[in-house]
């Protein structure tokens, strides 16, 4: 994991002092609400429905046990004893007071954490695949590149007042779990014919009101030019992105309006001026950043275990957990383990302070003290010895973290929704819970198999409903909370935006609607076909007819 040097530390200290001063000036009436707004947002602080919300960055999802213990402490000391992991690998606290935020930031800085640029119209936390550096099939480890982008984007003076927020994702895994294609910039690590490393660059993806899959602006960008090229894109966006309408201000709208060809020629013109300049990355810098992400000291272990095999055949729940939550690892004798934060009755992605401490201890005990936060709002231990999986499972069970739901219908992605967020049209959490309660039979869930269900409380799409195989969107219908269903979205390398099923439903109807959709799938599926594959084969019609009846 990346460790801060004296410069990184100094930046954080200076930032905390800057924000302390700004908060002080705001509270003293020397900064207006309007002047303070972007300053607090760029420190992760929203003013929400019930209280401020503080979003703390977990850069590209990497976290260590010391940091997680600090988050537990903050949850307990400044909040109501829990935190919420978001789809962007960050963690949110819903109950801090404004006056306390500088102190919270100071505490975070002690463990090399911060809330810098987790909100506001600037470059946000760079995200990546949670298996980076551990996946069996990997082109290259994305984490050093994420760190390089983190540094470049942190306090970039030219891009602090962009037309709108800006999100970058990097993926080096064959399987894209970072929803890379729906980011303002998506970067896939690739090798060219000569075997040199570079990036396939996508631009203009995004969700929100206008969901769009990013377009390929460059098939191969040599890694040396990464920052120059990003700078060129950002410069064109900062100069030409719309500022007259918040809903048309993302880069996707500019790319669409210009057309890819024109947009790309503008980027090239900027890039020409920057190319081979001082921003060009060096071997030394890439090696330096990569050195933080070298493998831990693995033992030489066989890739099978007698006791594990026995446990798998004797304990059916363990077997299910193993099938759903344990993933292949590049190192023989090791596995990646997902901790599914989707226990029924708890808000998806929420973790209590006690659970955080338990997970921190388990990561020390089982996984070299490191963790990952995922886009699906779960956590991962990425270096667990195969033979110790039964032992880990027992400990996770005690913390209610061993639900075998990873990738099943109950592994719901959901934004905090109307219970917390002042932007929301409707609640998300009770809808997620109603669905989880309706589908409470594990055999049934396993029979349904791989599926993603994503819920957003409004058009801003923080719950990524457009890219769920089933997406649920909260809408306001004459002051009442209704829910629209979209089908067929997906987030991986074959990313797709879901299509609207039809008229929306009342909250209490949703579990039955999902039940009907699942029934259509189960009736029609071919052997081993997933929900998405069946949907892609059959199209919308059979689902629509079953829900709304045949058109007259």
């Amino acid at each position: 994991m990346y460790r801060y040097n004296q410069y990184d530390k100094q930046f954080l200290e200076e930032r905390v002092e800057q924000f302390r001063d700004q908060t002080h000036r705001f509270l003293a009436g020397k900064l207006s609400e309007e002047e303070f707004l972007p300053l607090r947002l760029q420190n992760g602080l929203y003013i929400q429905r019930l209280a401020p919300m503080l979003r703390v960055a977990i850069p590209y999802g990497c976290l260590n046990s010391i940091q997680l213990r600090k988050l537990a402490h903050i949850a307990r000391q400044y909040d109501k004893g829990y935190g919420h992991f978001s789809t962007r690998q960050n963690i949110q606290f819903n109950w801090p007071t404004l006056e306390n935020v500088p102190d919270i930031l100071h505490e975070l800085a002690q463990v090399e954490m911060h809330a810098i640029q987790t909100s506001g119209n600037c470059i946000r936390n760079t995200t990546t695949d949670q298996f980076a550096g551990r996946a069996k099939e990997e082109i290259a480890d994305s984490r050093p590149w994420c760190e390089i982008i983190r540094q470049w984007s942190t306090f970039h003076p030219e891009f602090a007042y962009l037309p709108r927020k800006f999100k970058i994702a990097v993926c080096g895994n064959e399987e894209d779990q970072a929803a890379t294609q729906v980011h303002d910039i998506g970067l896939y690590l690739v090798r060219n014919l000569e075997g040199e490393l570079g990036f396939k660059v996508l631009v203009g993806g995004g969700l929100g009101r206008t969901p769009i899959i990013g377009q390929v602006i460059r098939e191969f960008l040599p890694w040396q030019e990464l920052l120059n090229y990003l700078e060129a894109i950002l410069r064109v966006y900062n100069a030409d992105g719309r500022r007259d309408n918040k809903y048309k201000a993302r880069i996707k709208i500019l790319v669409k309006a210009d057309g890819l060809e024109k947009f790309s020629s503008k980027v090239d013109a900027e890039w020409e001026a920057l190319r081979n300049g001082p921003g060009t990355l060096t071997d030394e810098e890439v090696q330096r950043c990569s050195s933080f992400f070298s493998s831990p000291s693995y033992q030489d272990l066989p890739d099978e275990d007698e006791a594990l095999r026995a446990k798998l055949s004797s304990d059916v729940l363990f077997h299910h957990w193993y099938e759903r939550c344990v993933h292949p690892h590049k190192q023989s004798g090791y596995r990646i383990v997902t901790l599914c934060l989707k226990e029924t009755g708890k808000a998806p992605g929420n973790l209590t302070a006690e659970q955080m401490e338990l997970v921190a201890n388990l990561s020390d005990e089982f996984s070299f003290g490191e963790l990952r936060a995922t886009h699906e709002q779960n956590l991962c231990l990425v270096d667990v010895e195969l033979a110790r999986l039964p032992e880990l499972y027992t400990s996770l069970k005690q913390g209610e973290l061993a639900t075998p739901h990873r990738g099943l219908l109950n592994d719901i992605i959901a934004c905090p929704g109307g219970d917390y967020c002042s932007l929301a049209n409707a609640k998300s959490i009770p809808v997620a819970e109603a669905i989880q309660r309706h589908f409470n039979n594990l055999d049934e869930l396993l029979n349904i198999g791989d599926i993603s269900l994503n819920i957003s409380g409004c058009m801003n799409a923080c719950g990524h409903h457009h890219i769920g195989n089933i997406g649920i969107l909260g809408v306001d219908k004459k002051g009442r909370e209704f829910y629209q269903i979209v089908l067929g979205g997906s987030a991986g390398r074959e990313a797709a935006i879901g299509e609207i099923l039809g008229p929306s439903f009342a909250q209490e109807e949703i579990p039955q609607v999902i039940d009907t959709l699942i029934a259509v799938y189960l009736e029609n599926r071919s052997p081993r076909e997933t929900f998405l594959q069946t949907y892609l084969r059959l199209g919308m019609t059979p689902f629509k007819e079953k829900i709304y009846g045949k058109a007259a």
Partner: protein
Amino acid sequence: MAKLLKLPTTFSQSVYVWMPCETTISEIETQCRVQPEAPVLVHYKLWQEITQLKSLEIGGAKILPWLDGDDSLHDLTNTVALNSIDLIALHFPKFTDGRPYTLASRLRRTCDYKGHLLATGDIGIDQLQYMERCGFDMFILQKDYEETEVLKALSCFQEHYQSLVTNPVPLFRRQQFA
């Protein structure tokens, strides 16, 4: 009364007179007559008209161009040698409109402009250091700030990760690790 901050850090009463887009040439002439010691900032299109007709001064008062985010640098660079202009003002209609940062970067880095870059409009001290790092060296501050506050805001961060106008060498090319 607005203050002028000129880097490295001299403060004075601002004498610059900023005139909006729709100003007429005769209004400018009147301003120059009334206050010949005050340089007048006019929108660059009008400035081009005036400077083509006459000179860079009217009755002893300097006429200088300003641009904002809506303007294209190409128009300006195609018609004049930039480095013949002592000062260009970049205007922030709102402090949240970040386009002048890119204008400044382009003027300094792409066009190699050496004269003064003056920030006008809706700017507060919390934006100063980023502006300076993009190449601004003069600022008209509308609010009444203490000089110590301004200096503190300008030196919030000692270092920078990126390649900047003020120091093009990014941290990764300079850093020495303990």
